Structures are given as structure tokens and as C-alpha cells.
């Protein structure tokens, strides 16, 4: 038994280093691609070079004769058993969900769709033999632009039509808002298509030992995957074990049931030998589901003082070629989030899901919420500009005041807690808002070639997905609960099993802290197990910033059950009545006699021996708990971004970035800080760098990281972070933090760029705001006539570009890690 520390530091809120990092960052762990099984074969897929074509014939016979090749298959070889990849979210009763064979048999609908495969002794032989496969295609017209695809006469992606669904949600009095209001604004925003680009590529290993199947996959969702694969392949669920070993990032892209996972199982079943497939980066860029891709038509009605009367949202969402696991549900999460933190009288949300001959879209960090937040936060800035108000003024006039919580929004959600005033005040202070506005004025007045912009984003999000009843009402195919087990080992150590399957988030550390706090056992004595359906049989996995808010609560509940079970045993050991005991973490003591007590470790040992337990008490203090949240959680925050725009080249440099987030109670501030940093990078990437580009034939152009620009640390500023704390209305008080940075930062950056360029008459830049787009916007605004202010100014040789970059020291005073 480990001795208790003399002056124990509270576990919750402690900035502990992550216990999983040693094995993760020293290369000691086994990623899926490291797994080698005896006799294992390697699969390579041949993929469609056409965005849209009929398959006339596939001949794999020559490939079978290539060196090292064991088998080669076309789609027809799987036709009887491959089923259709599942879509678990039929958002409307009349939604069109097309058949989605894992390997195409008759028609291909995006570049990269699997049409054949080779199974060989090594990866090289498999890749070489793909050249020997002959396929005859009849090209069909590609369908690439959703705005065209919904028109009559467009070529069809699927026979049933290009529109998958038309979803409408309306609340309040929208008509009078748009009839009476003196200010009506209309904007169109483009959410470009993004590629998730997790650091670890997808990889699958499948084995079949006498009809007992094991699938290792770099997945976020081993539990959901097991259910879905059982349904698709007909393999009995009891005979299918799914293992997600350590997984190197997902961002939603590994919240999927993929063609390769299904086919790996089918191939191992055919051959009776284990098989492995690992994608290359280029293959991944083409065939990992993409994110975003919407056209957003937004109308807002407001009074002259800036008060919003009504909001009308009309979305076109690009589904890509098929509906995958939650494809149609992603844009619909926006239905809840377009109103953001604001009050209004009327709201309408319409979303049409449209098919194209491109890679399907699905969840990507934020999933529907970044898109909504971007649009509302952009149009709030436009409204401020139109009315001559400071961007904060117009927000303040509309946001829910802290004394109004809990507040039911026009979209029907009940926000349990929040304090937008506090977060905003803190952010403005950390940012030096007034000083930067003054500098902006100076640069404008002097015609500085480098202009300064200031961008605001006051956001909220719905996390902790999700109350199962709500998911049911939205026609989602599963619940939103999470599971936890605690196993008390005879030596006093603890195994914690969670159904929340981590893929980089640091669950093992945070979960250990919660158990250490609740059960009073040392942090080091706790081991967290996850990601294997045989070890962790129940779970709903990790996505939607849900793990701590939902899985953490399951763990809290399980801890309570352990204590409850331990109590009668402690009473027996101490020979007192259970009513005379009191619990302090780690120990039951006799009331009034604190020296007389028994530790949880001693109780665990007593149940192992079980020699002298009270009558009728089972020799076991382990506990399971399943927690179903009653509500979503609503993290929020205020982000501020200052950009310097080189008006001669269009280059945008982020000069400073302040993120004040309210994620409720914090278990580990270091992990929160890491999530915020990574999230900001991804949101900034959408604003400035990333876009999945298809050419006119439907070929993906951005197949490598030389063309799809994922920013690195060298491209990003030193963030200034701060926190405010409005606890969620749960025992843990945690709201979730995985997506906050991504959701908040994209509009903050674009608002900043537009703010810098307003004197040119510029009101929007399409994302990503590349230097060329910024430069062209300035050129167009000038009408190509006179020399720019910048050009006139050049001879005056200014030095403002070297500016005073603030030291990006995180304001983490509440975290306990500042010293």
C-alpha cells in the first residue's frame, strides 16, 4: 500500500503530466500498423480514377499471377456478403440513403472509391500488382457543385436524385421580424471542404481464428464499430472483437465505419489468414471522409440598436457521394447552434443535403457547430459595421445575460450555465483591446501598407453528446450514454475501464485523477483500460467533446457505488454499525474516533480473502455505472485575434490571439490547455490555410501535404489563454473542451481580416483567406486604378511591421500550473 502524501494536493484541477505520454511519444506503443501476426498478408486497393463512371468490367486475373500475390478481388467477389456501409442518422422520414457497397460493383461516384484489391505477402508486392488489374469504365458526368446539383436537369449522382433530404426547423415569430425590422442583412458564406489529416493514418488488421474474428483499427469508435460491422457482415457480434490500440488522432475522421474495415474482415474470412491495410497519406487525403463543405445563406433582421429580431438560415450541405455513419446529421447540429449565445424572436433553419461525386463528408472537429458559429459570428460583425457599433456592443445587446441562466434558446436548448460578460471582460483585458484599436486607427490614418485587424468571436457550443432521449428524437441510431467500471485489485491498486475510447486526449490521466479524488487512492496506483471490446465491453466512444462530460460522470457514479459496496464490509471489519461510519476519500472511519478506521485498500484485500465478510455481502466491491446525461453541456468563451495584413502581398500574419474559455470545472488544466492550443490551430487552419480542392473533372488536387497546407507551430502565434468558470450542472461540473478552439477561432480570424480591410470597402474574404485572395480583394476594391495607399506610402519607409508582438504567456492563473 502506498503511503499517503503528507500534504495532499487536490487531484481535480491539478496540472499533472499525462501518464500515457511516455509510451506514446517514445515510440514504444503499438499502433495498428505496428501489429504483425503470423502469416499476415497485406492488402492494397485499386481506386477509381474517375469521379463518376459505370464499371463495364474488372479483370483481376493477371494480378493473381504477379509475384507474391495470394489473391485479387473485384467488387463482384464481395457482392453477396459486403452489404452496404451504414448511415446511422436518417434525419428526415423521406431521406434518400443510397446503397453504399464497400467495394464498388456497378458504378463509381468519387475519385478514390475502391474498385479492386490485391492481397500479397508484403505491401510492396500488393502495390506493384495493382498495375496488372484491368478495368473498363464508361465515364459519366461529374457532379461537383451543390448549387448546380440541386437544379433540375443536373446530371444525377444517384438515380433517386441529388437531394438527400430537406430539413426545416422553425421557432418563434420570424415573419413579423422580417416585416417590421428596420435592418435586414443578407450574407452568403462558404464553408470550404476540409481534410481531417490526423497524424496517424488509418490502418486495419483483421484475423479470423476458427470463426472468431478480431479487428484492430485506428478508430475512435471500437464499440459502435463492432455493432455496425456485425450488422453489415453478418458476423455474430459475440464472435467479433474490435480493438483500437493507441490511436494517433481522429478529429472525427475515425468516427466512421469504413469500406476498408469491412473488406479486411471479408478478406480474412475468405483466406483464413490475417490481413493488414494501412493507407498512405495521399490515399488518406482522398478517402478519409472530409469535413464542412456548405453554402450558407443567412438573413438577419435587427432593430436599429442592433437587437436581433430574427435569423433565417438556409444551408446547402455537400454530402459527397454517399451518406456515411453520421453524414446527414453533421450539418443539422447547426440547427441548434446558429443562434449562438443570442436572444431573438424568430428563427428558421433549413438544410438540404446534396449529393456530389466527391468523397463523402462527415464529422470533423466541431461537426456542424463550427459552421454555424462561423456564420453567426461573421454576421454579428457585419451588423456592427452596418450600424456603426463596436463588435462587442452589438453582441452585448443580444447575448444571454449571466443572471438569465438557465436559459432556453430559440433553438430549444436549455443552456444551464455561462457568463459571457466575465469571459469577454477577461479576454479584452488580456488582449489590450483599446490599445490595439488605437494602433489600428494610427495605421489607417497613415496609410500603412501593413494594416491591423481585430476579430472577435463570442461563441458557445453544445457538448457532452448526448442525452439518449434527445438523440432518439433526432432519429439518431444510438444512445448517448457512457460506461465505466472500477475493479478494486487485492493489493489496493485499481483498474478503471472506460467506454470512452481515447485517441490522444489524455483520458488515462484525467480518469486517474477523478478516481484518485473520489476513492482517495494514489494517482500512480490507477490504471485506465479502454479501446478493446473484450476489456471494455460497453461504450459509446469518443467524439463531440463528450468523454469527460459523459464518461467522467459514469466514472463518478461508479466510484460512488464502490464506496457504497465497501461500507458494510468496513462496518464488519471495524465491528461497528454502518451508520457509525463516515467516508473521507480513501478511508472509512468511526464517527468520533478518527483513529479507528479502515482503508479502501484494506477493504479490497478483505474481499479477496473473503474470510470474514458480513452475512449476505458479496466478496466484491467492484462497480459498473452507465451514465446518460440529462442535457448537453455548453462551454463558451470569448476569443480575440489581431492580424497584420500586408496589403502589398495579401499575406496575413496573426499577431496575437487571446482565447478565454469557460469549460466549467477543470480536471487537468494542462490537458485543457493542450486541447485549446490544438483546437485553435485547426480553426485557424480553416481560416487561412486548408482546403480540399477538386478540379473540374472531380480529381482531388490536394492529395499531398505540399498542396493541402496543414500549419505547423512555426506558422502559428503564441496563444494567450485564460479561463473563466461556470460549472456545468452535474456532479463533475465539466463541460468538455475538445472542440472549443476549433469552433471559436475560425470566425475570430476571418473577422479580424475583414476588420482590417473594411476601409477598402471589403466585407468578406472567402476561406481559406490565402494571400492571393486577400490581395485580389484589395485589387478589386481599388478597381485597379490608383496606386495604393501602401504604394504611396512605401517611400516613407515605415517600420510598423516589426511591431510589438506580445509575449504569448498563457494566463492560466486558475490552473495551478502557472508557477
Amino acid at each position, binding site marked *: 500500500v502506498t503511503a499517503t502524501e503528507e500534504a495532499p494536493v487536490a487531484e481535480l484541477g491539478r496540472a499533472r503530466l499525462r501518464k500515457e505520454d511516455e509510451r506514446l511519444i517514445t515510440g514504444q506503443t503499438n499502433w495498428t500498423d505496428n501489429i504483425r501476426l503470423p502469416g499476415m498478408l497485406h492488402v492494397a486497393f485499386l481506386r477509381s480514377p474517375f469521379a463518376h463512371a459505370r464499371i463495364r468490367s474488372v479483370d483481376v486475373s493477371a494480378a493473381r499471377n504477379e509475384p507474391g500475390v495470394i489473391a485479387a478481388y473485384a467488387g463482384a467477389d464481395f457482392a453477396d456478403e459486403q452489404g452496404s456501409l451504414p448511415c446511422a442518422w436518417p434525419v428526415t422520414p423521406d431521406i434518400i440513403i443510397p446503397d453504399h457497397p464497400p467495394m464498388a460493383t456497378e458504378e463509381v461516384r468519387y475519385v478514390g472509391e475502391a474498385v479492386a484489391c490485391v492481397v500479397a505477402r508484403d*505491401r*510492396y508486392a500488393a*502495390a*506493384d500488382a495493382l498495375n496488372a488489374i484491368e478495368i473498363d469504365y464508361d465515364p459519366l458526368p461529374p457532379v461537383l457543385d451543390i448549387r448546380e446539383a440541386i437544379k433540375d436537369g443536373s446530371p444525377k449522382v444517384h438515380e433517386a436524385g441529388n437531394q438527400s433530404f430537406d430539413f426545416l426547423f422553425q421557432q418563434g415569430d420570424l415573419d413579423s421580424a422580417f416585416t417590421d425590422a428596420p435592418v435586414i442583412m443578407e450574407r452568403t458564406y462558404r464553408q470550404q471542404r476540409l481534410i481531417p489529416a490526423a497524424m496517424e493514418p488509418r490502418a486495419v488488421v483483421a484475423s479470423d481464428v476458427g470463426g472468431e474474428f478480431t479487428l484492430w483499427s485506428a478508430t475512435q469508435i471500437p464499440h459502435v464499430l463492432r455493432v455496425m460491422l456485425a450488422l453489415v457482415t453478418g458476423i455474430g457480434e459475440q464472435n467479433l472483437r474490435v480493438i483500437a490500440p493507441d490511436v494517433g488522432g481522429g478529429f472525427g475522421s475515425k468516427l466512421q465505419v469504413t469500406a476498408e474495415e469491412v473488406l479486411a474482415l471479408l478478406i480474412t474470412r475468405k483466406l483464413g489468414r490475417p490481413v493488414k491495410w494501412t493507407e*498512405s497519406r*495521399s490515399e488518406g487525403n482522398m478517402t478519409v471522409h472530409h469535413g464542412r463543405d456548405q453554402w450558407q445563406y443567412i438573413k438577419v433582421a435587427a432593430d436599429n440598436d442592433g437587437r436581433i429580431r430574427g435569423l433565417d438560415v438556409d444551408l446547402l450541405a455537400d454530402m459527397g457521394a454517399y451518406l456515411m455513419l453520421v453524414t446527414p446529421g453533421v450539418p443539422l447540429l447547426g440547427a441548434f447552434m446558429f443562434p449562438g449565445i443570442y436572444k431573438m424572436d424568430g428563427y428558421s433553419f433549413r438544410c438540404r443535403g446534396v449529393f456530389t461525386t466527391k468523397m463523402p463528408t462527415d464529422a470533423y472537429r466541431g461537426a456542424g457547430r463550427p459552421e454555424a458559429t462561423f456564420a453567426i459570428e461573421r454576421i454579428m460583425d457585419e451588423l456592427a459595421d452596418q450600424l456603426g457599433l463596436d463588435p462587442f456592443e452589438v453582441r452585448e445587446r443580444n447575448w444571454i445575460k449571466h443572471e438569465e441562466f438557465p436559459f432556453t434558446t430559440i433553438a430549444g436548448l436549455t443552456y444551464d450555465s455561462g457568463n459571457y460578460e466575465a469571459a469577454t471582460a477577461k479576454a479584452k483585458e488580456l488582449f489590450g483591446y483599446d490599445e490595439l484599436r488605437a494602433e489600428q486607427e494610427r495605421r489607417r490614418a497613415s496609410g500603412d501598407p501593413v494594416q491591423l485587424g481585430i476579430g472577435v468571436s463570442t461563441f458557445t457550443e453544445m457538448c457532452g453528446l448526448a442525452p439518449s432521449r434527445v438523440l432518439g428524437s433526432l432519429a439518431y441510431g444510438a444512445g448517448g450514454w457512457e460506461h465505466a467500471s472500477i475493479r478494486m485489485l487485492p493489493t489496493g491498486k485499481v483498474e478503471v475501464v472506460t467506454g470512452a475510447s481515447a485517441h490522444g486526449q489524455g483520458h488515462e490521466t484525467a480518469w486517474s485523477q477523478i478516481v484518485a479524488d473520489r476513492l482517495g487512492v494514489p494517482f500512480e496506483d490507477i490504471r485506465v483500460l479502454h479501446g478493446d471490446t473484450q476489456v471494455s465491453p460497453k461504450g459509446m466512444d469518443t467524439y463531440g467533446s463528450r468523454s469527460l462530460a459523459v464518461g467522467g460522470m459514469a466514472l463518478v457514479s461508479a466510484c460512488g457505488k464502490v464506496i457504497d459496496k465497501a461500507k458494510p464490509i468496513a462496518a464488519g471489519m471495524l465491528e461497528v454499525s454502518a451508520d457509525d461510519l463516515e467516508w473521507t476519500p480513501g478511508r472509512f472511519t468511526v464517527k468520533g474516533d478518527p483513529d479507528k478506521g479502515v482503508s479502501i485498500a484494506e477493504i479490497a484485500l478483505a474481499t479477496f480473502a473473503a474470510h470474514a465478510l458480513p452475512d449476505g455481502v458479496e466478496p466484491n466491491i467492484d462497480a459498473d455505472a452507465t451514465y446518460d446525461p440529462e442535457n448537453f453541456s455548453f462551454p463558451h468563451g470569448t476569443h480575440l485575434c489581431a492580424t497584420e495584413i500586408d496589403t*502589398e*502581398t495579401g*499575406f496575413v500574419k496573426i499577431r496575437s490571439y487571446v482565447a478565454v474559455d469557460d469549460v466549467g470545472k477543470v480536471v487537468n488544466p494542462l490537458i485543457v490547455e493542450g486541447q485549446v492550443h490544438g483546437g485553435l490551430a485547426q480553426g485557424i487552419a480553416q481560416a487561412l*490555410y486548408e482546403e480540399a*480542392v477538386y478540379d473540374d473533372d472531380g480529381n482531388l*488536387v*490536394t492529395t*499531398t501535404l*505540399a*498542396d493541402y*497546407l496543414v*500549419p*505547423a507551430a*512555426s*506558422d502559428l502565434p503564441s496563444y494567450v489563454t485564460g479561463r473563466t468558470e461556470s460549472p456545468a450542472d452535474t456532479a463533475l461540473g465539466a463541460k468538455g473542451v475538445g472542440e472549443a478552439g476549433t469552433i471559436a477561432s475560425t470566425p475570430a480570424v476571418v473577422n479580424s481580416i475583414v476588420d482590417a480591410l473594411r476601409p477598402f470597402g471589403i466585407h468578406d474574404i472567402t476561406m481559406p483567406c*490565402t*494571400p*492571393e485572395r486577400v*490581395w*485580389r480583394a484589395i485589387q478589386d476594391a481599388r478597381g485597379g486604378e490608383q496606386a495604393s495607399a501602401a504604394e504611396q506610402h*512605401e*517611400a516613407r*519607409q515605415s517600420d510598423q511591421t516589426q511591431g510589438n508582438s506580445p509575449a504569448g504567456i498563457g494566463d492560466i492563473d486558475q490552473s495551478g500550473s502557472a508557477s
Partner: protein
Amino acid sequence: MIPGKFDYVRPDTVDDAVRALADAGDEAKIIAGGQSLLPLLRLRLAYPEVLVDVGAIDELRGVWDSGDALVIGARTTHYQLVHDPLIAEHAGLLAQATSTVADPAVRHRGTLGGALAHADPAGDLPAVILALDGTLIARGPGGEREIAASDFFVDYLTSSLEPDEILTAIRIPKLGAGWGYRYEKFHRTAQSWATVAVAALVRRDNGSVAEARIGLTNMGTVPVRATAAEQAVRGVAASRAALNEAAAQADEGTQPPGDLHGAPDYRRHLARVLTGRALAAAAGV
């Protein structure tokens, strides 16, 4: 990385390497640091039958003072160039430009000779060697020959090296007193290729520009000199206004590519702006 199949040899001497190349006919590729070739192999855009690894040939590595010039072994890594005192003293432009190549990992593996022989007009170093009036020294079965930088870059990813020749060294005239330099690189992220970059050398004589040499990165299928701007800047006052006026001719005669990072007209504009900035920095104004 899953490249196509190839044979691999690792000779100890240049002569052995030349023999290996000759034996392979047109089907060999030299690999040094591999930072340009490996991506092509990975994407199966290159299918060499033989890779001749020059990584064991130590005579190809180093920087030597040969009087009026520096001689740089072709296998000298970017990292070594950035930290070499002779380069810093006599060819600072090369060190400055090399420090912007990709990222530290690439700079530890990548070599000057490899970067030049790859002849990528978007690479940083071809335009720099062009501006420095470098000479490339190659060895083949018939012995050694010298190729002026201006004759070396023939087309996109194509140099004037014969299939059986190895680039062994690069000779760069030392910059004398009065020369200033600047590599002005414009790229969207720190690790991405230059959208456009300008390598400028300026020799000042009192208050005016006596001479300037300007190399342009990614403004055509080969690195090019901005000859019109070079002529225009000769003799003008070393002032921002005069330098910018000359820089307005920087894109003359170029045929810049168009891609995701910039259409040709944007690249022309960038070449003009960046040339003005590079000249000003090189002239110290």
C-alpha cells in the same frame, strides 16, 4: 513509403558511382539526402531501376577556399552550409536562403548538390546559385566538366547533367567588399515551397547601386535572372523609390506557373514587390 522496385548500390568513390551510372544506362537515379527524390519514389512518379547512393563518398562533402572562390562539395548538407564560417563570410546569400529550406529535419538530410541536380524551379537554391554566378562541376566517364549555372537548368526538373554524370561540386566566386544580399521568400506556411522568392545581390558604390544580380525562384520552368531589373537598377540611387522603380521590371520575360498558391499574374506582382524589398535589404536602405 511503398516505392516501385529498384536495385541499390552504394559506391565508395566518385569513379565507382560513375561506373554504376554508366552500367544502368538511362535507368539510374543518384540519391544523396533523398529529400527531393524520396517523395517522387513514394508517389511512384519516379521509377528508377537503380538507385546510386552517394552517401558513402566523403570527398563530395565539405567547403574549401580556393582563392577567389569557394568550392562546395555536392553532398554538403543544408545544415552544414548554414553553419559554415567560409559560407558566412563569402557567400552569405547562400546561407540565408538555405536556412529557409523546408524544416530542420530536411536541412539535416538534404544536400546542395541534390537540390541543384533536382532542378526544381520552386526550390530555393537554384535561383541563388544563379544569382551568385556559380559554376557546377560534374564528372562522367569522360572526366570532369564545368557548367555555368546559367547553362545548368534546362527545363522543369531537368538539368544539363548527362545520365552518367555526377554533380561533384559547386564553385562560387567570393563576394567582395561592398556587396549586400537578401533572399526574400514568400510562402504560405514556413514549410511550404516558395510561391515566389527573390535572391538579390547588390554592390553599392557610395550612394548608388553599382551592380545588382537578381535570381527568381518559381517564376518559370527554370530559375531565371531578372535581367531587365538588373539593368534598370544599375547606377540608380540607393533609395527605396528608385529600387522599387527598377523592381517593377522584375517579372519581364518570365513565364510563372499557376497553381493553388498563386495564378501567374499574382506571381508577377509578387516578383515585383519582393524584388523591391530584396534590393532594399541588400542595399541596406
